[in-house]
């Protein structure tokens, strides 16, 4: 843990590598990458275990129960498990594993974690409405030139730039 962390990779090289991973998913599986879908499947699985009748009544959870396969046996759930392993392994190899709370210079740990939770919740709502996030819509749908995905990209970054000046205290 005391090793000096290696610097991050060149963003363009990392981007090309990420693009090749995405291309591999298209070529092998005929589908792209995702992240929020794994959250949706896992949430459906838990909701079904805790309150099966209520979960089946929600048209949203019903989407993930329709095919009869348990929601956790989903492509994106296994992909995200891989993301966690791959991300952790890569950081470990580069000496970048650190138990920290990343926050802006003016923000204390408690508020940072509150904002992180609120941000996660807000993105959860947004991803349900948009049927995907920066992975499933922006990267995957972007490379496939899907109209809705490009609308999502413009809306998400547009809103982020509109909101950022109001949240300056969080990050600067």
């Amino acid at each position, binding site marked *: 843990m005391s090793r000096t962390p290696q610097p991050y990779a060149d*963003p*363009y090289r990392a*981007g*090309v590598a990420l*693009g090749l991973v*995405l*291309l591999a998913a298209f*070529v*092998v*599986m005929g589908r792209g*990458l995702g*992240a*929020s879908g794994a959250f949706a499947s896992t949430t*459906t699985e838990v909701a079904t275990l805790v309150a099966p009748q209520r979960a089946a009544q929600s*048209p*949203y959870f019903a989407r993930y129960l329709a095919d009869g*396969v348990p929601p956790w*046996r989903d*492509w994106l759930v*296994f992909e*995200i498990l*891989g993301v*966690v*392993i*791959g*991300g*952790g392994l*890569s950081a470990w190899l580069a000496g970048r594993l650190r138990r*920290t709370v*990343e*926050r802006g210079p003016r923000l204390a740990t408690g508020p940072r*974690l509150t904002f*992180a939770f*609120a*941000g996660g919740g*807000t*993105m*959860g*709502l*947004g991803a*349900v*409405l*948009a*049927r995907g*996030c*920066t992975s499933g*819509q922006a*990267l995957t749908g972007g*490379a*496939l*030139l*899907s*109209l*809705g*995905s490009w609308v*999502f990209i413009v809306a*998400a970054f547009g*809103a982020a730039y509109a*909101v950022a000046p109001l949240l300056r205290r969080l*990050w600067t």
Partner: protein
Amino acid sequence: MSAPLPLGATLGESSSLAIAFVIGIAFGATLERAGLGSARKLAGQFYLTDLTVLKVMFSAIVTAMLGLFWLGRLGVLDLTRVYVPETYLVPQLAGGLVFGAGFVLAGLCPGTSCVAAATGRIDGAVTVAGMFAGVLVTGAAFGSIGGFAERTALGVRRLPDVLHLSYGATVLVVVVAALAAFAIAERLERVARGEEQV
């Protein structure tokens, strides 16, 4: 003669899930190598001090887009068997706006929050927990907002159809847009470092 790829439906469930896991490892590792497990780095995108997000995402999109185009053209990949997300115009616009606000609050997106959590960042783990809460609450309330989420369903709708351009011309437009964005990003970073005036 039909194109041999994608394998997709010819694979059994177990091998599909195993491939998903392996692709996920590569996905997580590239995000981590790029520094996208770091919320401060991601937030730099919105304050124009560090444009790594734009550079990584746009070069990934261009790489995959060019790969799809050329593999399709060479007859190696059957593009009609690649799943394209359907367009729901208004909910995707609204969802994108909400998502963007959450992106700045958390400094992470769903995929990168998993990488942040895996690399020891507590804020990443809390963002993951927030995502679960958000999906659970939205899913439970879907009876009342579901109608909105199903609006303006246009099916598979792609930019070439909307722009009235050929597939190849649209690809070229995106490549040129990416190169212009990279040039602007480099300039903005030089300005942020004080090496250049606006």
